[in-house]
């Protein structure tokens, strides 16, 4: 889907309240240490209308302040278990329930500086029941998030 364009150039753009269904959560953006590593956390949600096995996450990308985060630096943490992004395709028995928030821990020496950061993320999922082809659904979100106090 392309970005919405107002029909009448003089009219204000539509108020996009539905954005709360975004892949990126507003809360829980903070510096953290995980397994002795310094870094920060971003909270994310599944945007599909039904729960999916993690093997149906086709891609997950993150950009902070315009800088692409390398997938090797991201740990996906859900319900107390952690996985690397490259492990996800194998996890066809672990379900991501639509109301479960997952934490993306990003290894980053010294963490992020205090203040607001531009966070962008894309989640690509496959609906595993659709017969024809392997349809990918792209859910992109971009938010200015305030780094929370630890």
């Amino acid at each position, binding site marked *: *889907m*392309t*970005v*919405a*364009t107002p*029909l009448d150039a003089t009219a204000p753009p*539509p*108020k*996009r*309240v*539905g*954005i*709360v*269904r975004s892949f990126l959560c507003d809360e829980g953006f903070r510096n953290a240490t995980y397994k002795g590593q310094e870094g920060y956390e971003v909270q994310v949600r599944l945007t599909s*209308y*039904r*729960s*999916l*096995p993690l*093997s*149906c996450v086709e891609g997950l990308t993150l950009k902070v302040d315009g800088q692409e985060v390398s997938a090797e630096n991201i740990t996906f943490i859900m319900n107390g278990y952690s996985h690397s992004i490259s492990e996800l*395709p*194998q996890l*066809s028995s672990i*379900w991501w*329930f*639509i*109301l*479960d928030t997952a934490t993306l821990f990003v290894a980053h020496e010294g963490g992020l500086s205090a203040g607001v950061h531009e966070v962008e993320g894309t989640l690509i999922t*496959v609906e*595993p*029941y*659709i*017969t024809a082809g*392997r349809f990918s659904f792209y859910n992109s979100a971009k938010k200015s998030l305030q780094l929370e106090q630890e």
Partner: protein
Amino acid sequence: MQTKHNIKRGVSLYSFQEETFLRKMSLEDCIAKASELGATGIQVVSEQSMPGFPHLSDAFYAQWHEWMEKYGCTPVCHDSFLDTKRHKGRNLTEEECVESVIRDLKHASKLGCSVMRILVSTSPELMEKCIPYAEEYNVKMGIEIHSPWHFDQPWIQRHIEVAERTGTKHFGLIPDMGIYTKRYPRVMKDRLIRNGATPAIAEYICEAYETRIFCEYVIFEVRSMGGNALDIAMAESLRHNIWSNPKRLLEYMPYIFHIHAKFYDMVDDETEYSIPYNEVIPYLIQGGYEGYLCSEYEGNRHIQDISEVDSVEQVRRHQAMMSKLLGEGQ
């Protein structure tokens, strides 16, 4: 008009998916609301409403049955899926497909559902293999006649042949009322325009749909007009929408034991913008249909970018409309 019948009203909790996702309504809230709106039957998409599915505890099922009793509801239908692509790089084998159906039959049975929805894309051969299990767990498997499929479509005919030939009571049809989309849903049109479709071309596509011009001709015309990607996507969406003749329900009635009462946009307490329930329900009454009509609201995804979604009000209107068309309280 014939008004004596045994048709019951239900709600698919799928209708409240927006409120569920936004944590405004819990599973119990959804059941309570359905009951409050006068529905007595509950249909559910388990991957959406039941945390932990497919691994649910006995305590969950006990709680489910407590809720059913508390709110005076009957569990009716579990909408099953068949995730043939859940493993990266390969499809499920036939054996794994049968296992998946059995898993869902057991779950439906534990929920107390007498019916299980089978996705329309599921093959007649697989269904035939699963019939003994449906009989064992006493859950009726119904192929969802979902737009753009319809009763006379060859793929559906093959399913009906299986039901006829085996003579089983545990395999049949679940029509989705989306097959009676008489007008192009305005919520879909408006969303496509907001996303960049050209208003005049969108208008042309709606008119072409209402005059039943073959969808491939409409797609060709829109390309010729120089339509943009969204215009072409909207024209192509006609391949997935259909108005079929509700009279055909009469012929297939022996195989129909559940109905997904799909809707997109209740204008008021009497009118769905694109699906004329007043032209369909009389045939259900005439044909002696005895199952549930479960409200299935699917308009949320077309308006969530621009407005607050009020699924509860939409379902309230839909239930009010069905109650009136069923002649309740007369």
